[in-house]
């Protein structure tokens, strides 16, 4: 017995890391924060209307609607998947809601629930197709459903617009609570919720695990398919929430709303440090990235730059922000 103990040396494993400034500061979020500050300074420099509370506050209402989807999109990208059907899901849920209210004459509350259900079902279909037909990959499936969902929206509403919602419905897009836009409050709440779910709970841990190694995750007893379906459903659901806010802001809807949203959303997530190679990303980074892109666009709008310049600036920002750390890493290695 004694001899056996000697076959190896006992070792201890450290469970506390010594404090390190490097670890604290070498984080993507700091870089993003710097960019955000730069954007705010730039904004106040170029436009006198930019840097004051009402302006910054109302500015958020311009870009936060689509930003709601960025959270589940981040989850999807962490799982090495992608969902390019979210814009179409927004359109379909919105059209369903408006049609049920205007044509079917259902109460608005019911129409809103139907809108959420539509979004969730769209997400569910994406998720189910993806896990049932693994050989297809998420890009293919959501490319197909992207065309399909918008197609259905066209079938329902054809060339009509549907609107004339009750007065109170405008609250979603235009309302304030204690002087803070309702949309901003919802965004903050969702950020907190998704931050907790992704970083503090078993569900979030599983999402990261799947992004890192789906096979090993399955072998470790994670129900990979179930997690995936849930996350895609969440994306659909939040697309529906976006549909509510967007429809409320516009007061009416059409089948062509929210075109190209998916690309904006993916850009926000990517700038926020979510890697489409999977397994990486933080909600905090994504939140900062949303404000960077949003305020940049808003600020440039205030000085009436043509929107094509804005395209170039966002593109360049995206590349620089992702490339600079890589280049830095390359330098260090040399």
């Amino acid at each position: 017995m004694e001899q056996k103990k000697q076959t190896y040396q006992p070792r201890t494993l450290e469970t506390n890391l010594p404090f390190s400034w490097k670890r604290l500061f070498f984080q993507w979020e700091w870089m993003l924060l710097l960019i955000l500050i730069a954007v705010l300074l730039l904004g106040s420099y170029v436009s006198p209307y930019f840097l004051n509370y009402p302006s910054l506050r109302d500015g958020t209402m311009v870009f936060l609607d689509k930003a709601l989807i960025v959270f589940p999109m981040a989850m999807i990208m962490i799982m090495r998947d992608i969902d390019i059907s979210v814009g179409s899901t927004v359109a379909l849920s919105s059209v369903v809601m408006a049609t049920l209210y205007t044509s079917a004459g259902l109460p608005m509350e019911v129409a809103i629930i139907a809108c959420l259900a539509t979004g969730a079902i769209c997400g569910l279909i994406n998720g189910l197709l993806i896990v049932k037909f693994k050989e297809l990959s998420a890009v293919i499936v959501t490319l197909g459903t992207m065309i399909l969902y918008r197609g259905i929206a066209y079938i329902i509403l054809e060339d009509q617009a549907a609107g004339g919602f009750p007065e109170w419905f405008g609250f979603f897009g235009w309302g304030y609570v204690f002087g803070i836009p309702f949309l901003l409050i919802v965004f903050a709440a969702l950020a907190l919720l998704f931050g907790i779910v992704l970083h503090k709970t078993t569900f979030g841990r599983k999402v990261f695990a799947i992004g890192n190694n789906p096979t090993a995750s399955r072998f470790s007893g994670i129900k990979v398919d179930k997690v995936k379906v849930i996350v895609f459903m969440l994306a659909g659901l939040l697309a529906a929430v976006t549909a509510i806010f967007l429809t409320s802001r516009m007061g009416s809807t059409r089948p062509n709303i929210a075109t190209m949203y998916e690309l904006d959303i993916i850009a926000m997530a990517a700038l926020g440090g979510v890697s489409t190679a999977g397994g990486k990303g933080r909600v905090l980074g994504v939140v900062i990235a949303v404000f960077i892109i949003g305020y940049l666009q808003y600020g440039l709008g205030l000085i009436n730059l043509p929107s094509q310049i804005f395209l170039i600036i966002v593109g360049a920002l995206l590349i620089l922000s992702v490339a600079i750390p890589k280049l830095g890493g390359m330098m260090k290695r040399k």
Partner: protein
Amino acid sequence: QGAPESSGTSGGESNDGPKKYAFVFKNTGNPYGEKMLDGFESTIKELGGEVILRSPDQPTAEGQIQIIEQLITQKVDVIAVAGNDPDALEPALKKAKDQGIKVLSVDSAVNAASRDIHVNQANPERIGRVQIEAVSEMIGGEGQIAVLSATSQATNQNTWIEWMKKELEKEDYKDIELVKVAYGDDLRDKSVSETEALLKSYPDLKAIIAPTTVGIAAAGKVLTDKGLEGQIALTGLGLPSEMATYIKSGVSPWMYLWNPIDVGKGAAYAAYELGEGNITGELGEKVDLRDLGEVEVVEDGEGTQIMLGDPFKFDETNIDEWKDVY
């Protein structure tokens, strides 16, 4: 539900210096729109105002709402908008009106509640009817015709098509049959496919009306490539520069359009009058459009509008003058 605190007390009045006139077009890079913006810009400058020209990069209402928000923050005095959607801009434009900003729509109307007045490039009834008259003349009052429109939800196009159908009910056109309304979505490739499909599905087709600049150019191209000039007539609304080739080759004997520069000008005068408080958009008011003449504010559904004359006819005789203009 807290009431929104207004981000600035009022629009124009408190501002000294030149007044700010903003024009929001449907999207950037639209040739027709660019010309309209040119007309607006030069006129406002002449009148001594400050001009802001903005368009989203996609032709969506969402993009226009964003821009309108930004214009409100900048405390402009007048917003002129060519709406991507008649209703969807209502909340944003109402917010602008609440803050004392004058709103007018140009080219594509927004609904009555969200504007003070609409500047109509031409009388939609005339636009519709004149194209049927033209087609009838081209095909000798007899045969199948088809319409190639833009997107299925373009409001002005749909209005014109309605008027075309009304015109067709007349006894004179009893031998003309409208076989199909196709939609090319204002995309070149789609418009080409749609045109080709029309030719195949309706071998006896005599004419195509394309009340959209992209559609008519695409159709002109298809008819040219297939060598169908003289067999199938093409008319509609097109840009002289894009249509010059086809008008000269006879593919399209003639077509119509108003002068977008003049539309921009008219919008600028109307905006100026609104901004100066000379008019309010009430029915019956007279608006002085300087060299475009004086027009009366007339009814348009629940709102009011002014109209800028008949569509202009472009044919062999005058196309060369115009093709370099726009």
